[in-house]
């Protein structure tokens, strides 16, 4: 359970921060392109002031609630529609896992676009969490896979399709890489990013062997009216520019018991999602009865995403 820890010693922390921040106030504000007089809205993308913010995992419930309310006001104003930001915690006794049937995936890419809409991915240029690779039948070789395939109809002759997204590794190299704990694995196994803490060094991106992380090279924009207003703090809420993001197994849906958007969009039912700790779950049925493999298993990253065949 993600029982929120109380901050160990808030006063000392604050004191240290004030000391350090005093010296750097001018520089920080300059960099953020803001005046010194700007009031603190700590969790807005306003970077410099976010330094005064406690790390998300150490916030008290009151602090989190106040922050979420502030974010809701801000997003609603900006997107001209009511936006909800929740932080539903990880459900007890749940470890999320995914399986994908290589026989049933036909390369339609419906999952890619459902994901873009559900997760409010930036459209300028369009960010996509899922990459569907077209590979030659007879091999599973990533080098030489075609990413931009476009045929009158798929599946194209002699081709197979291998969708790749964040596998929520159980031993994630990206989390080790982050110098500031801006990304971590939640108790339900989802690797999340705190967009208001990330400094955008992109070391996590280099560390990912599955090319699952994306960076906001500019401030991402979603056209007014196209925003999915049901958002999670660690998931699909609108992101600031200059930070890293990734697939969260649709944390905003799955933590409420719903299926992820890609599963829902798959026209062939190739995607199986569920609780790895539940012996009666679909995902466990796959692991126990199908031939499965994981990508780059030799790297010991322990992806919680299996490809299977009947």
């Amino acid at each position, binding site marked *: 359970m993600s029982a929120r820890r109380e901050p160990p010693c808030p006063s000392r922390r604050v004191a240290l921060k004030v000391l350090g921040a005093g010296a750097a106030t001018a520089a920080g504000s300059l960099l953020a392109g803001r005046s010194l007089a700007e009031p603190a809205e700590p969790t807005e993308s306003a970077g410099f002031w976010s330094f005064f913010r406690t790390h998300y995992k150490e916030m008290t419930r009151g602090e989190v609630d106040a922050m979420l309310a502030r974010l809701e006001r801000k997003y609603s104003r900006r997107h001209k529609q009511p936006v909800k930001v929740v932080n539903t915690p990880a459900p007890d006794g749940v470890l999320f896992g995914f399986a994908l049937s290589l026989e049933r995936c036909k390369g*339609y890419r419906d999952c890619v676009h459902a994901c873009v809409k559900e997760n409010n991915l930036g459209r300028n240029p369009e960010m996509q969490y899922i990459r569907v690779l077209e590979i030659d039948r007879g091999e599973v070789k990533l*080098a030489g896979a075609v990413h931009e395939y476009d045929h009158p109809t798929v599946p194209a002759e002699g081709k197979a399709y291998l969708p790749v997204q964040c596998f929520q590794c159980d031993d994630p190299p990206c989390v080790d890489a982050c110098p500031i704990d801006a990304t971590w694995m939640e108790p339900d196994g989802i690797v999340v990013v705190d967009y208001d803490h990330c400094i955008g060094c992109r070391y996590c991106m280099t560390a990912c062997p599955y090319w699952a992380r994306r960076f906001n090279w500019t401030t991402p924009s979603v056209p007014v009216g196209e925003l999915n207003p049901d958002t999670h703090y660690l998931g699909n809420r609108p992101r600031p520019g200059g930070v890293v993001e990734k697939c969260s197994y649709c944390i905003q849906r799955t933590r409420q018991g719903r299926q992820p958007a890609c599963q829902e969009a798959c026209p062939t039912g190739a995607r199986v999602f569920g609780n790895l700790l539940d012996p009666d779950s679909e995902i466990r049925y796959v692991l126990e009865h199908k031939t499965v493999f994981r990508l780059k298993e030799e790297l010991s990253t322990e992806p919680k995403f299996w490809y299977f065949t009947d």
Partner: protein
Amino acid sequence: MARGAEIVAVVLLLGACEPTRPAELPKQATGDVRRISTVASTAAPAPPPRAPDFTLAPRDAGVGAGEYHPCTECHEAGDEVDRRPRVLEDDHDDLKLVHGTGKIWCLDCHHPEERDALLGARGEAVPFAQPHRACGRCHAGVARDFAFGVHGRREGNWRGERVLLSCLACHRAHDPAIAPRRPASGPTPRADLPQPVHHHEPTRLHRAIEGGER
């Protein structure tokens, strides 16, 4: 036949990249994922006794939704039934039975006496609304996967009440193969950066297999 070959091909293809059955995963590890794999290894290969309960999602969309006409509109109960497989020339000439490539005919799936029903695994009458029970007559493995939510699709949630898509949400009964179609648009490379270069070198083996000679 072609599909069978395809499955074999995929299995072979996976053999080349060291498929790991759950049972073969290291057991000494501590992570949750490995723990599951260990559990899996002790559970396999005996099939679980019974699939959890499910209901079918209402078919308000999908292949052939809304095209249903009760057979009893014409075939009355008690009519004599000609059980000989034959080409239907007078009526049903609009029906093209692609399913089974000529090896099956109407009464292999439709109940001969109860005309508004399908034929179940033990010859029992199965309502049209429960097609998986009829399909399971031949496709037993698929039917089991379906019941466990692994073939087809579980709708809406991953926990709680299980609602599955009906077989007919994806497959047309008389022509079940899913028609190929155009894929949705692909990735959008940034125009201001160098464009992706496709680099693929067929190996000598590749060329030999494709060309049919060395």
